[in-house]
C-alpha cells in the first residue's frame, strides 16, 4: 500500500491519540460504569479500525474490529467491564501500541499476530451468548419524524398519472446492498408515488434483500428520468417498463432543488490547530538558535564600527529575533499530561501485580515543559511511580495494622515555580527505612559501618541514589529492572534538573523533581581565564568575590579559601585552559549543597546563549556540558557545574 506512504506520519500521530484515549477511558471504566467513557472507547476503536483498514494494516484492523465488537456489547448494556475484561482489553491496547510503533518504524503490522487477543475477545463474546448486535452501532437515535409509509399495498392516486414497473439490480460486489436499494427507492419517491414494492421497505430495513428490487411507480417524470433516478453507484441494471393504461394530462410535481438556507450570519468556526512534524519544529528551532547567535555577532560588529543606521536596524532585528525565540519556545512547550496520562495504567498494573490497593491522583498535568525535557522525563518518572507503589505503599493488611486506610494514596502533581517546573510525587506508604538503607549500603560496600552510623536521615536517603543500590530484596518484575534511583538521578541531572527526597517513617515519602522548563537557551556568565573564555550557567553561580592568591589554605591535596566563615574548595581549571597568573576573581558555584569556587581573571558579562551539545565524536568531556558560539564567532565551552562540584 505504498500509495498511503504519505499518510503514515499522520496515521501514527492520530492513532497514538486514539490509543491513549482508549487506555484512559478503559481505566475510568474499571472504576465504574461511565457512558461517556464507553462512547469514547467505542469511537477510538472505530476510528482506529477505519484508519488501519484504509492503510491496509490487516492485523491491526482485525484487532480493532474485535475490540469494537466487545464494546458494542458494553455499549448496549449487555455487558460490563470486569477486571478480567479490563486486563484483556488493556493487553489488546498494548498490542495496538506495538502495532503503532511498528508502523512508525516503517512496518505494516504484519509481524504482529493478534490471534491470541482476537480469539480471547471472541471467546468472551461467545460466553456472553452470541455475536454482537449490529444494531448496537446506532447510538440511541430518536425515532424518525417521518416514518416510512408502508407502501407494499397500492395507494390511492390523485388523477391519472402514468405508471411504470421498475426492476433495479444492485451490483454483486456492493457492500451494503440493502442500503443501495433504499437510496434507489428514495430517489424514485422524489419523482412519483410508489405503488408496490418487493421486497417491502420494512424487509429491506431489516436487511432482507438479495439484490433485486421490483417496484411499481406512478410518475409523470418520464422513463428516462426514472431510469436515471434509480441508477447510481453500484447499481448493475435498471429496467423501466411503462404500464399500459389510459393516458391523461398530468400535473407536474414541483421538485425544488434550489432552496437554499436562510444564511444567518453565524460566527464561523475555523480549524485552529495545526499538526506539525516535530523534526520540522526542531529544524526551525535550530535556525532560530543560529539567528540568536548571529544577532549577537551583528550587534558586536555594529558596536565596533559605530554605524548609527546599522545599529538601529540591528535593534529592530533584535526585537524580532527575541520575539521569534520566545514564540518558538512556547510552541515547543507540551503539557505534562502527554506523559502523565500513561501513568494511571502503570499504577494499576503494579498494584495488581503486588496485590496492593492504590488510589492515584494526578494534578497540574496542564503544566508545560519543553519537548526536549519531556523526552528525557518519561523513563525516570515511570521508575519513580513504580517505586512508589512497589516499595512505598504497603500491603492492605500491613496498612490496616498500622491504622491506615487499606487503600494507599499516591499523588503526582506539577506546577510552575518562577523559572522552574516542580514535579512532586507523594505517597502515604511506609517511607524509607533508614536503618535498612544504611545496612544495605554497608553490605554493598558503598560506605563503612562507622561512617554510616554517623549519617543523618537525609544523608542516608542520599544513599538510595548511589549506583548499585537497591533495597528490594529480590528483583521484581516491576520495579527492579537492574536500574536504580541512581539512573533516575542521572537522567534528571542530564535535563539540568535536580531530585530531592523527603521521607517520614510510617507516613510516606515525597520525591520532588525540579526541572528547567527548557534546556535550549541558558543564561551564562562569560569569564576569561588565561585569555580563554568560558561560560558558567548563571543558575549555578551563588557569588562572585575578590581573590588573593596568598589567602588560600592547603587541606590535604586540595586547596581552599575561607569565605564568610565557610571553607570552600578551590577548583583550578588549569587542565582546561592552562595556568593563569592573574586570577583575581572567584566565582562560587553550587550544586545541591556542595560549593566550590573557580578562580578567573575577568568577568565579561552575562549573556543568553544557546548551548549546543558536544558531538559524540569528542567523547567523554567531564566538566563541559556543551559549547556556544558567541557574537564574535568564538566557540566557547560552557561548564557543567554538576560534574565539577
Amino acid at each position, binding site marked *: 500500500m505504498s500509495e498511503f506512504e504519505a499518510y503514515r506520519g499522520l496515521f501514527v500521530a492520530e492513532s497514538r491519540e486514539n490509543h491513549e484515549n482508549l487506555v484512559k477511558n478503559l481505566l475510568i471504566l474499571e472504576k465504574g460504569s461511565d457512558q461517556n467513557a464507553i462512547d469514547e472507547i467505542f469511537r477510538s476503536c472505530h*476510528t482506529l479500525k477505519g484508519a488501519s483498514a484504509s492503510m491496509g494494516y490487516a492485523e491491526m484492523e482485525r484487532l480493532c474490529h474485535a475490540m469494537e465488537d466487545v464494546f458494542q456489547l458494553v455499549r448496549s448494556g449487555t455487558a460490563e467491564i470486569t477486571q478480567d475484561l479490563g486486563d484483556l482489553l488493556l493487553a489488546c491496547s498494548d498490542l495496538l501500541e506495538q502495532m503503532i510503533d511498528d508502523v512508525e518504524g516503517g512496518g505494516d503490522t504484519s509481524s504482529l499476530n493478534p490471534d491470541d487477543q482476537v480469539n480471547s475477545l471472541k471467546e468472551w463474546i461467545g460466553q456472553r451468548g452470541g455475536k454482537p448486535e449490529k444494531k448496537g452501532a446506532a447510538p440511541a437515535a430518536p425515532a424518525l419524524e417521518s416514518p416510512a409509509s408502508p407502501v407494499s399495498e397500492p395507494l390511492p392516486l390523485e388523477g391519472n398519472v402514468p405508471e411504470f414497473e421498475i426492476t433495479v439490480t444492485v451490483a454483486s460486489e456492493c457492500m451494503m446492498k440493502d442500503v443501495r436499494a433504499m437510496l434507489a427507492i428514495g430517489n424514485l419517491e422524489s419523482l412519483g408515488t410508489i405503488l408496490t414494492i418487493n421486497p417491502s421497505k420494512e424487509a429491506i430495513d431489516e436487511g432482507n434483500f438479495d439484490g433485486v428490487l421490483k417496484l411499481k411507480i406512478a410518475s409523470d417524470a418520464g422513463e428516462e428520468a426514472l431510469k436515471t433516478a434509480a441508477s*447510481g453507484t453500484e447499481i448493475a441494471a435498471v429496467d423501466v417498463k411503462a404500464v399500459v393504461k389510459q393516458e391523461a394530462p398530468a400535473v407536474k410535481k414541483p421538485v425544488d432543488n434550489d432552496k437554499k438556507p436562510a444564511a444567518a450570519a453565524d460566527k464561523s468556526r475555523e480549524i485552529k490547530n495545526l499538526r506539525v512534524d516535530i523534526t520540522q519544529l526542531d529544524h526551525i528551532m535550530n535556525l532560530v538558535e543560529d539567528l540568536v547567535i548571529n544577532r549577537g555577532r551583528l550587534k558586536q560588529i555594529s558596536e565596533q564600527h559605530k554605524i548609527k543606521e546599522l545599529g538601529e536596524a540591528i535593534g529592530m532585528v533584535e526585537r524580532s529575533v527575541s520575539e521569534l525565540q520566545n514564540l518558538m519556545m512556547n510552541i515547543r512547550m507540551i503539557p505534562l499530561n502527554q506523559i502523565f496520562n500513561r501513568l494511571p495504567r502503570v499504577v494499576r498494573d503494579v498494584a495488581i501485580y503486588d496485590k496492593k490497593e492504590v488510589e492515584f491522583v494526578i494534578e497540574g498535568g496542564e503544566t508545560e515543559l519543553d519537548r526536549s525535557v519531556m523526552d528525557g522525563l518519561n523513563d525516570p518518572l515511570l521508575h519513580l511511580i513504580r517505586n512508589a507503589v512497589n516499595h512505598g505503599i504497603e500491603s492492605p493488611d500491613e496498612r490496616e495494622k498500622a491504622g491506615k486506610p487499606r487503600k494507599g494514596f499516591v499523588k503526582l502533581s506539577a506546577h510552575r515555580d518562577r523559572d522552574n517546573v516542580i514535579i512532586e510525587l507523594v505517597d502515604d506508604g511506609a517511607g524509607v527505612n533508614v536503618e535498612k538503607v544504611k545496612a544495605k549500603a554497608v553490605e554493598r560496600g558503598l560506605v563503612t559501618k562507622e561512617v554510616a552510623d554517623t549519617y543523618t536521615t537525609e544523608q542516608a536517603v542520599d544513599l538510595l541514589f548511589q549506583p548499585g543500590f537497591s533495597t528490594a530484596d529480590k528483583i521484581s518484575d516491576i520495579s527492579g529492572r537492574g536500574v536504580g534511583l541512581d539512573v533516575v538521578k542521572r537522567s534528571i541531572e542530564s535535563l539540568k534538573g535536580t531530585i530531592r527526597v523527603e521521607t517520614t517513617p510510617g507516613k510516606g515519602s515525597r520525591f520532588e523533581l525540579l526541572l528547567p522548563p527548557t534546556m535550549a537557551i541558558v543564561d551564562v556568565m562569560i569569564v576569561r581565564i588565561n585569555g580563554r573564555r568560558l561560560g558558567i550557567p548563571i543558575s549555578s553561580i551563588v557569588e562572585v568575590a575578590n581573590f588573593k592568591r596568598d589567602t588560600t589554605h592547603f587541606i590535604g591535596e586540595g586547596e581552599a579559601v575561607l569565605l564568610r566563615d565557610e571553607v570552600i574548595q578551590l577548583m583550578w581549571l588549569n587542565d582546561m585552559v592552562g595556568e593563569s597568573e592573574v586570577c583575581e576573581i572567584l566565582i562560587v558555584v553550587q550544586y545541591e549543597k556542595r560549593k566550590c569556587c573557580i578562580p578567573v581573571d575577568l568577568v565579561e558579562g552575562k549573556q543568553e546563549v544557546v548551548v549546543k551539545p558536544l558531538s559524540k565524536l569528542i567523547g567523554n568531556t567531564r566538566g563541559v556540558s556543551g559549547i556556544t558560539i558567541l557574537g564574535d564567532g568564538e566557540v566557547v565551552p560552557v561548564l557543567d557545574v554538576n560534574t565539577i562540584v
Partner: protein
Amino acid sequence: MGKILIVDDTLFMRTLLKNILFSGGHTIAGEAGDGEEAIAKYKELKPDLVTMDVVMPKMNGIEALKGIKALDPAARVVMCTAVGQEQMVKLAIKSGAKGYIVKPFQAPKVLEEVKNVLAS
C-alpha cells in the same frame, strides 16, 4: 465537479478523502472535525456536497445530517461508513442522506458516488 465539505473527526481520514476528491477534480470547500462544526461550516460555505462521518465526538454524523437538512432540505450529504454500520446508514438515508461510501475508501468508488450524488 463540486465544492465539497469534508466532515470527519480524524485529520487522517480527512486528508485521505481530500486527496481522493482532489484527484477527481473537485474543490474542497472546507473541513469539519465534529457534527457541530459541520453545521456551522455548512452555513458558512454552502458546499455542493458534504461527506459525513458517522461516529464523531460532540455530535454524531446522523444528528449533523439532520441539522444540515433542517438548514437546507436540498443538501447533498454522502455518509462515510464502515461495514457493520448498515443500520446507521439506513437511519441516515431516512433522514435525507443521498449516498454513502464505505471505509476503507476506494478512490474510484468514492468518486463515482460523489459524481452521481452531485448529478442528482
